[in-house]
Structure formats: structure tokens, C-alpha cells
């Protein structure tokens, strides 16, 4: 928590420090800390009410990070791999909450695989960040399921298994917002985080986030150096809040402008391509091709901004939340109660 005085405030009247958290206890240089910084910045710029921010996570170095941002929000650090389910519970209990879940590649793609797939399928309205470093950081460097076949571990072992591409997986499962970022690319990440928040549904951000302690060596396919060399930007992103003016006019064919439910706009400009992120099939193709080439494709890969989210599908969106329901909301009138019982005579 910084204690800067005379700090500037955002539109919501909150200071940057309201979005910060405790000092990080991660290793110096850990990619996860960069992501934390960008979340702080994005949330500040979006002007979210910090006390309505709910931060969920599983277990791992990545899952510790919710303690390092938005200290005025509420954190629920659950058990390993189960961030999705507690997030769904919280969102159903109070759909006004702005839920962000942070997970790791071990947390999501190994033990949490089942919950992850089903969260995506339900399109729960939340931001889902996977801080993907290809290893289990907190347990000291074992391969995770997103580690590429042939990758070398710090102690020299070679990974024998094909990696799971979380972006392709999410699209296949019917996900509605799929993007990949890199912890060292703040600009891209900032736009992605903002768009994730504005999106109504599950926004899956697969952020490659090097583990400087256990997976930053020669032979690693998730080292800072390797990712820098292999990062291919799919698109340039511009996020325009409802109260902002787009900086430049968009010529047709040059970019896709996507209006998001909260009134903001996302401007997607293909880099050497004209990929429309609404095209599911093209998205899968791009992923598969870049994969074959050994590239790491980053940017907004796929979006379906008009799909219903879970609360809407279930009609759990009364302004009065489940958490606020009282006796009158919950109990049928006496007559209805008696009538029901009468059916058992």
C-alpha cells in the first residue's frame, strides 16, 4: 500500500493506491509481478469501485498475487485448482461483484482442468487470468501441462508430453473471449485486461509469464528470452472507455471495432493480417499454424461478445442480490405453504 499524498484520482474518485496491494513476496523479476502491475493500472484507469472487486485464486506463486493488488477489494484464495468454482459461487451470490480470478498453468491446466473447462462452458462473467510459466513455481520447477514437448527443465530433464494450448482449448469449449499476452508487454496487456473487464462472460487471458527462478534457462520455451524471440503479435489493440474518444478514425477493412456491453469499444487492428476475432475457425487455424511454426501468438484471438453469460442465462440478475435476500424474498406466503403441504395428505 503506497502512502502517497495528493495522489490523483480516477473518475470514480479512487487513487492508484486504492488498487494496489501488499508488497509482493515473489522472486525478483517474476513475470507474475508485471501482470499484477498491469491489473492495478487497468483497474485504476477503468475506475472500478475497489470494494466491488473480488479476487479469487487457487494455489501457486501466481495464485498468491491477488494479495498484491486492489487491497480494498475482497480476496478469496481457495484450494489448488478450484478457483473456478468459488468464483461461480461468488458471482451467483452477488452479480454486482467484479470478479477476477488468477491462476497458474499448474492450477488451471493440471489439477483444475475440469473446473476450468466447465467454467468456460458456462460463460461466467469474470476475468480469468492464467499466469502461464510452463512450470510449477511454488513447488520448485516441475513441468506443467503447458510446457512444450522437448522443453528442458532446469535440472536438465526433457519434457515428453505435448503441451495443452489453453487458447485453442477455450475456443473449442465455446469460450467467448480468448487472448494471449506476455508479461513483458504492458501495452498489449493493459488493453486486454480492460477489454476482459468490459466483456460480459468469461474472458480468458493466457499470459505467458516467465518464472525467473525455475524456467528461465537455455532450453526452456518459456524463458524471457525465448518468448521475446518467438512472440508474434496477432493484432494491435485499442481500448476506448465509454467516456473516451477513439484516437484515430478507422478506415473500413483496416480494423475491427467491437462495442462492448458497458459502452466501451475495442479496436482490433491486425498485424500483417486481417483476422476478424469473431471468426472462431480462423482463430483455431491461426493458433494451430503458429504452433507448428513454434511461434507464440499474442493478442486478442477470439471474441463472441454477444453470448449470454451465466447469470443472464439463469436469470440470476435481480438488482437485489442473492446475498441480500431476506425472509420476505425467500418464503412463499403462508397460504402457498399450506397448500403445498396439503398435497401430501
Amino acid at each position: 500500500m503506497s502512502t502517497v499524498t495528493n495522489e490523483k484520482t480516477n473518475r470514480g474518485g479512487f487513487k492508484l493506491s486504492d488498487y494496489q496491494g501488499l508488497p509482493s513476496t515473489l522472486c525478483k523479476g517474476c513475470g507474475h509481478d508485471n501482470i499484477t502491475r498491469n491489473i492495478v493500472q487497468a483497474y485504476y484507469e477503468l475506475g472500478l469501485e475497489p470494494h466491488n472487486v473480488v479476487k479469487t485464486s487457487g494455489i501457486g506463486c501466481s495464485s498468491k498475487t491477488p494479495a498484491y493488488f486492489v487491497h480494498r477489494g475482497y480476496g478469496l484464495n481457495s484450494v489448488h485448482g478450484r478457483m473456478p468454482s468459488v468464483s461461480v459461487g461468488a458471482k451467483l451470490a452477488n452479480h454486482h461483484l467484479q470478479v477476477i480470478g488468477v491462476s497458474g498453468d499448474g492450477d488451471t491446466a493440471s489439477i483444475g482442468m475440469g473446473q476450468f473447462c466447465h467454467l468456460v462452458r458456462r460463460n461466467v462473467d469474470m476475468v480469468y487470468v492464467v499466469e502461464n510459466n510452463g512450470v510449477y513455481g511454488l513447488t520448485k520447477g516441475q513441468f506443467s501441462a503447458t510446457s512444450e514437448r522437448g522443453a528442458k527443465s532446469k535440472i536438465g530433464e526433457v519434457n515428453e508430453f505435448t503441451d495443452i494450448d489453453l487458447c485453442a482449448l477455450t475456443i473449442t469449449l465455446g469460450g467467448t473471449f480468448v487472448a494471449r499476452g506476455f508479461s513483458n508487454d504492458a501495452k498489449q496487456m493493459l488493453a486486454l485486461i480492460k477489454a476482459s473487464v468490459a466483456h460480459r462472460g468469461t474472458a480468458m487471458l493466457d499470459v505467458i509469464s516467465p518464472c525467473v527462478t525455475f524456467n528461465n534457462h537455455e532450453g526452456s520455451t518459456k524463458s524471457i528470452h525465448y518468448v521475446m524471440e518467438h512472440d508474434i503479435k496477432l493484432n494491435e489493440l485499442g481500448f476506448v472507455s465509454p467516456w473516451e474518444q477513439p484516437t484515430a478514425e478507422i478506415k473500413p477493412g483496416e480494423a475491427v471495432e467491437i462495442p462492448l456491453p458497458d459502452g466501451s469499444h475495442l479496436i482490433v487492428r491486425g498485424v500483417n493480417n486481417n483476422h476478424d476475432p469473431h471468426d472462431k475457425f480462423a482463430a483455431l487455424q491461426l493458433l494451430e499454424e503458429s504452433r507448428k511454426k513454434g511461434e507464440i501468438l499474442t493478442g486478442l484471438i477470439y471474441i463472441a461478445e454477444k453470448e449470454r453469460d451465466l447469470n443472464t442465462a439463469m436469470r440470476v440478475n435481480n438488482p437485489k442480490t442473492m446475498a441480500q435476500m431476506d425472509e420476505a424474498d425467500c418464503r412463499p406466503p403462508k397460504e402457498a405453504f399450506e397448500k403445498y403441504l396439503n398435497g401430501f395428505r
Partner: protein
Amino acid sequence: MNPPPETLTASQPSTPLQLTVNDLSIEAATVNGTGSQSANNILAKSLFRMGIPMAAKNLFPSNIQGLPTWFTIRASKHGYTARKKELDWLIGMNPTTWEKDVANLRPGAVVMWNSNELSDAPVKARGDLIAYPIPMNDCIKGVAADAKLKKMLVNMVYVGAVTHLLGIEEEVVLKVIADQFKSKQKAVEINVACLRAGMEYAKASLPKKDPYRVERMDANGNKILIEGNTIAALGCLMGGVTVMGWYPITPSSSLAEALIALAKKHRVDAANHTIRFADVQCEDELASIGLVLGAGWAGARSMTTTAGPGISLMSEFVGLGYYAELPGVIFDVQRVGPSTGLPTRTAQGDVLAAAFCSHGDTEHLVLHPCSPEECYEFARISFDYAERYQTPVFVLLDLDLGMNFWMCEPPSYTTEAFDRGKVLSPAKLDELKAAGKKWGRYLDMDGDGIPWRPLPGNPHPDAAYFTRGSGHDEYARYSEDPEVYRRNLDRLRKKIEGSRTTLPQPVLETVPGAKVGILAYGSTNNAMREARDQLAAAGVKSDYLRIRATPLATAAVEKFFKEHERVYIVEQNRDGQMELMIRQVLTTPGAVDKIRPVRHYTGFPIDARTISDGVLAGEGKR
């Protein structure tokens, strides 16, 4: 107290017949998936509406179609509603079990069967049975064309025959049929036709040879006939549950499904078409419990329904609930374990699994309802306990209680306010501040071990906190400090210990001069009155302590041990799971030496005779 009637009928010679009124158990042996359930329900409900105390059980296989099922109705003017060990009247409909069903009958029992499908040979071979063969297929020849429908309707023939032979009032049966099929006039007609066919056949061809009769009584008053799961669902509705995550599993699914149906009717907001109840059929039990705890954390009254395998899977999360202090209610409708066990049979096998769920030092609040009345009540108040103690609360039903039909006093409409426990509002936080008290999420401010909790979204600048399953101090800050850890664990124990006196207290029933105590819980209660009557008839006076929750009400249990020479602990499990919990707390010297276990674990609901025999053996009277 009345003399134990089972002994009378059981030892009764087949001739001369002594008239037995309103006291028999009938069992229909059918095949599942053939629609016999509807006919059986009609028979059961008719007896109930005649004002005769009764209960009905469905003994079904873990299978969808084609395997043996038995439906048993016990009618008892004495109000005994447990399973009767021996059957008075068998209705044979299933060729695969027919021989064994007949062989198992006590001497002189009544047997009725579909002679178009089953051979007379087994009955003839025995010679001692009162036989009522009925060519049921022939009886309904003209009634329906469709073969599948016929298979269903044939069951109405025995309903008709039994109606005639026992003297069930025809108007009652007709009304039950009309109610059952409601607006479906066609169904009513066709069922009535088959009923009549059975009645006619009996009138014409089955001269009364058995001693059983039923007569209108007025014993049922205002009661309803209901399954424990169904009324528990109503308790949940009234208790204010708003979020449910569940995963289907026998025998708990019908609780969830009943609640969903109730919510569809009573929780829809007419104004904006929203629903004041969120239910997610989750992908598994790990997800259900996660959803429940996430919702409870965020302030909703939340629950899940499951059975043993689900409890095992939920273990890790339940530990988080205990340690991070998250409310949530877990309904465990117990079935036979270990492992998949007998999924459609009953047991009290999860007493320990629930109480000590998860690794490390934990202890959870567990409610043990014994009747539909308590299913309703405990379901309703479980949400209060969960929020008051900020911890997972288990409600343990069992298959017998949850899926069988029991008579029940209708619950009176609840007007009691929810007890939401120590929810910290912005105002309360200001108030504390003004009083110079520093609040901490895990700080014991009131000496009861229970801290105050703000709900996410609370905008007070001091309210936000971070919840975790790892070590934390009074202010919810991460800590590995050994003393902080111990302090927190001691507070948690204090908090849970406090529940010993606020959870539903044991119920004591005494008779003057009893030296024998019997301790039981849950559905076993249904056999207790009968068992104690049997004991009294055999000269053993007994007092009865019924446990309704753990952590145990230590004082009451100690007192019960002090006041009795021997205490029989009756359980429907092999290993004496409640006994172990009792051994844990008993401190009166010599108390544990008084323990005598009576255990039943076959998957069938316990019967009175098993209990009284167990006690009599212990008393040296057998």
C-alpha cells in the same frame, strides 16, 4: 404402553385365526421400471387416509429397469413405523425373486400373486401359507392395448384385490387415484377400471382366509405423508437458501430436485422475471462444494446435496471452509459404503466422515434429523448455524429417512427471522471504531471465538480483507508465526466447542426405574418406541437418549451415562462411529465401561427386533 404386537402375530399359529385389525405389513415384490410405484403409492396413501398410522418403503436396486424391487407398507395401530422384520402379506409379481420371496415368509403368512406369470409351485410346496392366486393379466385383458401400459396397470389389480380383502374403503381409494392423476381423466379411468377388476376378482374368487382387516381410525390427525428429502427441501426454501450447487447422486438427488421445483414456483420475480434462487448442476462434487463456499463467502445462504462418495470428494474444500470460516450447508443423504457400496440402501455410515472431514485438526457441525419434522426443521435452521458459526454445516439424512414415506406433523409456517450471525455492516464497523475497538476478520471480539465478517462489496474503507486457507493472524494477514497459528487454532476450537450447547440438544425419554439406557440417533428413532415396548414386555425398562447433533452435548451425554448401569448405543454402521465420538468426550470415570454396542449394517433399515434383541442379549435375557 401397548404390548409388542410383532411378537403376537409372529408367534401366532396359522389356525385358528385371530382377527388382526390395523396391524400388518404388506410387501409388493415387483420389477423396477414397470410402473408399480404408482400402484403402491395408491395403496399406501389409501391406508394413510383411513387414519391408520403407517409408513412405506421402497427397496430398489441400483439399476433403472428390470431388476427386483420391493415396496413395503407397514400399517400399525400402535403407531410403529419402522421396518418389520417379518412380513405378513406378500404380493408376488416378479418371477426372478418369486421362489426366494416365498421361501423367506414366516409361517402362516399371506401370499397373493399374479398366477398368469408366476408358478403356484413354491406356495404349494410350503403348504402353510394363506394363498391368493390371481390371474392378473386376464383380469385386465380388455382394459388396455399397449403392452407397456398393461405391465403398469396389472399392478392396480392387486391394489383392488387387497382393497377388497382388507376392507379398505373404496371411496378413499378412488379419491387417491383421482388426486394422483389429477387432470388426466383418461389415466384415472383406466386405473379405476383395473382396480375394479381386482376387487371383482377377489370378491368372486378369493374367499377371505386371512386374519387381517383395516378399519378407519383417527390416528393421523392433521398429518401428511412425505419423504424426508421432499420436506427437507421445503425447509431449505423457508430457511432462505439462495444458491445451490449440486451433483446428482442417489439418494440425495430428489432433495435437490424438489428444491428446484419449489423455487420454480415460489422464487420467480413476477416483476422482472428474475429468479431468487440460483442452482447449478455442477460437473462434480468438488465444484459443488466450491460453489457453495464461494457463495457463502459472498453472503448467500448456500447448500449442496450429496451422499458418501461426494463427502469424500469434498474433503479438501470442507477443510478450507473450516479454517477460512466460510458458511455453507451440506446435505448428506447417507447410503451404504464404503466406496460405491450399495447405492440404493440405507446406512449411518458417514458420521465420522462428516464430523472430521478433511486432513489436519478439524471438527464440523453435524445435524442428525430423525424424522420428516426434523428434516424440515434442521434443514431450515442449518443455514442459521452455518452463518452464526461461519463454518460448513452437515445435515445427515439417510436413504430410509430421505426416500421413504413417513407420516409427519405438518410444519407450522415459519415466521422466525434469519439469524445471519455476525455480518459486519459498514454501520457496525463505524460503531466498533467509535467505541475504540479495532476489528479484525479473525479477531475474537466477543469471547465466543466467533469473529465478525464483512461481505464482499462492503464499501467501508476498513472492511476489505483477504481470505485464505493458509496461516493467518487476527487481521487476516498471512502468517507463519507459530504462536499466531496456535492462537487461531485455539479460537477455532473454542468457537466450535460453543456449539455443543446451542445445537439441537439430545432428547431424553424416561420411564421410572429404568437402569438400562439406550442411545440412538437419526432414522433409528423410528424403531425405538416399538423396541422399547418389546423390551418392557420382556421385563426390561429402558430410558432413551436421542442425539441430534455433534459436537455432542457433552453434559447431557455424561449425565445419561451416570444415571444408567449400561448404555446401549444403537447404530446403523459396522464400526460404531457415534460411539467413537462419545468415547472422545466421556470423562466420568467408568462411564465408557458401560457402553454396549448394538449395530446393524445390512443396508436394510433397522427394525425394532434387532434393537430389543441386542439389548436383551446384553442383559442376559436371550
